[in-house]
């Protein structure tokens, strides 16, 4: 037999509480001056055996009741003869929350919630089911079922390691439902290892109703929740709000805004240091500074790190000392000279498009470079597709399914911008369902044609 909450076994001595209460009562009985003692003695003599036996039995029952209650709270798992709940299920589905919050560590043991849960679960499954059940792991990161040969492998699998992702527990349960339904897993125990983060569980999601009705149709499914809901106290979370590389008169430097926020619990309120060392590593060169924490919080605005001359490209990281959540102690970044903001203007009317070109080339951000390429319709193939962020198209729309049309679609699909301006002679071609419509002259004094886009 093993326990999912073995620490609560320390409460077992509480089972002796009824005996203690009995002894206290024995000494706190009220005193009665009694004349007919001879009948009391006679009654005591008559009842001696039965009364004592009854008292002992009641006391033992009370002790057992308290002990059973404590053992129940410890969540025992029993196999073999003790597993009187029906033996091993056919399938054990382990739903593992691999979100970053599961990496919170116990300061004294250095073990994360995920590791602790998996270790506990693997031991429990090993002892309770002894390899008689098929174990399948579905983790929140990959969301794909993976058969596990032995319960002890649970802690070693790549798909059971920590990630910096969030978890979608309703989705994970949907995966479990799909797997159970598709594979006809028979009697199934579903073990959920999670820290019950509200964002991961999304309790207001409408999917829970679907899940509830879905699982209600599967009679042999039992759920077990192995949870570590308490936030690990003493955690400081490093966050870089803004980081930029600037070139100035004194050379290139990195400017950053950082803040440190604590996870405060009543127990760990006093655990935070008054000063926090922050380490900056840029291209392998480390520097450090100490900053004062106020109520465990720290905010630094505009901290600059000089890069020296000529070095505007590289990598770096910012570190704070290890705490219960290692995932938010280090912030990695890379930097480089800002890329050129490149635009391409496709037009056969250079004079007409000149104002647009002037606007695109204007340095809206002085720290960046802007480049505008003017290409006539015959040189469309020369567009630098990978480097151009905005294409201004003032020639007839490309033919459907043409190579140019496909390139433009890919350009849009990558999140870049495309601006169509009416050509001198619009054709009937369409692009992604958009085509030029009839000319509308809304202002008779103005002889220019106005664009109407119509399907």
């Amino acid at each position: 037999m093993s326990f999912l909450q073995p620490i609560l076994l320390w409460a077992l001595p509480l089972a002796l509480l009824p005996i203690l209460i009995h002894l206290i009562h024995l000494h706190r009985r009220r005193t009665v001056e009694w004349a007919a003692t001879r009948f009391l003695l006679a009654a005591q003599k008559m009842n001696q055996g039965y009364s004592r036996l009854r008292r002992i039995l009641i006391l033992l029952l009370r002790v057992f009741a308290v002990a059973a209650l404590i053992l129940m709270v410890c969540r025992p798992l029993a196999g073999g003869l003790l597993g009187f709940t029906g033996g091993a299920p056919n399938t054990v589905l382990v739903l593992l929350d691999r979100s970053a919050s599961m990496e919170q560590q116990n300061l004294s043991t250095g073990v994360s919630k995920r590791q602790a849960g998996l270790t506990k679960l693997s031991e429990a499954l090993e002892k309770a089911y002894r390899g008689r059940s098929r174990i399948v792991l579905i983790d929140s990161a990959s969301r794909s079922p993976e058969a596990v040969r032995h319960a002890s492998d649970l802690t070693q699998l790549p798909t059971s390691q920590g990630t910096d992702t969030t978890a979608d527990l309703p989705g994970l349960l949907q995966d479990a439902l799909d797997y159970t339904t598709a594979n006809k897993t028979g009697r199934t125990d579903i073990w959920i290892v999670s820290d019950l983060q509200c964002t991961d569980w999304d309790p207001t999601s409408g999917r829970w109703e679907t899940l509830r009705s879905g699982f209600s149709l599967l009679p042999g499914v039992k759920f077990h929740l192995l949870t570590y809901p308490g936030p690990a106290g003493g955690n400081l979370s490093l966050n870089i709000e803004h980081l930029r590389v600037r070139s100035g008169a004194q050379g290139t430097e990195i400017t950053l805004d950082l803040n440190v926020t604590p996870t405060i619990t009543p127990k760990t309120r006093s655990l935070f240091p008054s000063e926090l060392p922050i380490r900056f590593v840029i291209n392998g060169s480390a520097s450090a500074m100490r900053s004062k924490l106020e109520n465990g919080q720290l905010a630094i605005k505009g901290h600059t790190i000089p890069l020296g001359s000529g070095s505007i490209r590289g990598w770096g990281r910012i570190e704070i000392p290890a705490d219960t959540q290692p995932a938010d102690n280090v912030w990695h970044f890379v930097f480089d000279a800002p890329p050129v903001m490149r635009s391409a203007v496709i037009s056969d009317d250079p004079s007409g498009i000149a104002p647009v070109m002037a606007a695109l080339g204007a340095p809206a951000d002085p720290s960046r470079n802007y480049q505008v390429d003017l290409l006539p319709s015959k040189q469309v193939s020369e567009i630098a597709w990978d480097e151009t962020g905005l294409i201004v198209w003032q020639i007839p729309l490309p033919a459907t399914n043409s190579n140019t049309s496909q390139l433009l679609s890919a350009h849009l699909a990558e999140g870049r911008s495309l601006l169509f301006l009416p050509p001198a002679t619009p054709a009937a071609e369409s692009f992604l369902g958009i085509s030029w419509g009839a000319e509308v002259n809304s202002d008779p004094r103005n002889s220019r044609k106005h664009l109407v886009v119509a399907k």
Partner: protein
Amino acid sequence: MALPICARQAVIGSVSGLHRSPVRGSSLEFAEYRKYVPGDDLRRLDWRAWGRSDRHYVKEFEADTNLRLIVLLDISGSMNFRNTEENGLNRIDYARKLAGTLAYLAARQGDAVGFWTAGNQGKKKKNKQIPTSLPARRGATHLGTVLDTIGDVQAGGPTTLISSLHEAAEQISQRAVIVIFSDLFADPAELRSAIQHLRFRKHDVVVFHLLDQQEIAFDFDRPARFIDLEGADLVLADPEDMAAAYRKAFADWTLQIDGIVRSAGIDYLRVMLDENYTEVLTRFLLARTPKKSAR
């Protein structure tokens, strides 16, 4: 008019009184004819009987005399019992009231009143030496002494009821009405023997058996430590476990007491401590008042 204390049987008194005497006297009540023997007073010869039967008979009349009332008070520790729930009189105080009233009534009708204690004296009152027995005497002064003694005597210690009854039987030589006030917490077989001893000595025995409802019902609701009033016994009892057995033992014992008083032919009154003592006395006196045809 107050109810008199009447003797159930003839008593031998020293002066004339309200009670029938075993010796012949000069009252108006005819007793029997007796053959004339020389020396008898000729004035008592029944001439009419001589005329009818030609034999000499002497007419004899009943004699009325006073009685001796001995109040025997059990002063063992158990007489200090008081109901813990109702906070009423304790048993010895209740017995004092009954005993004192009876003594007063007896003295008022000219009877001699005596006093005996059964048990060792408890704590002495103001270091005053209190007699354990007073012989039966008439007179207001003696009544005062008896009443003072009844009021001063203290209960305590183990019971000596049986030995005291035997002692009383031996030492009270003349017929008397012996009124016992006790809880009778003694061995029934020994009690039977002691009462039979009193009866053997021709005493008219009356027992006021003083009990409390709490002692009979034993209706405690939680475990308690029971300390024996007559000794050092300490019983830790859970009423839930023991009440049934206790009540059974108590019922058996009362059945035995009933058997003893029935076989001994004595007057027996079971008195609850929550009863009004005047009602108890009225009941007792009425029960002893002879019917008009009985004499």
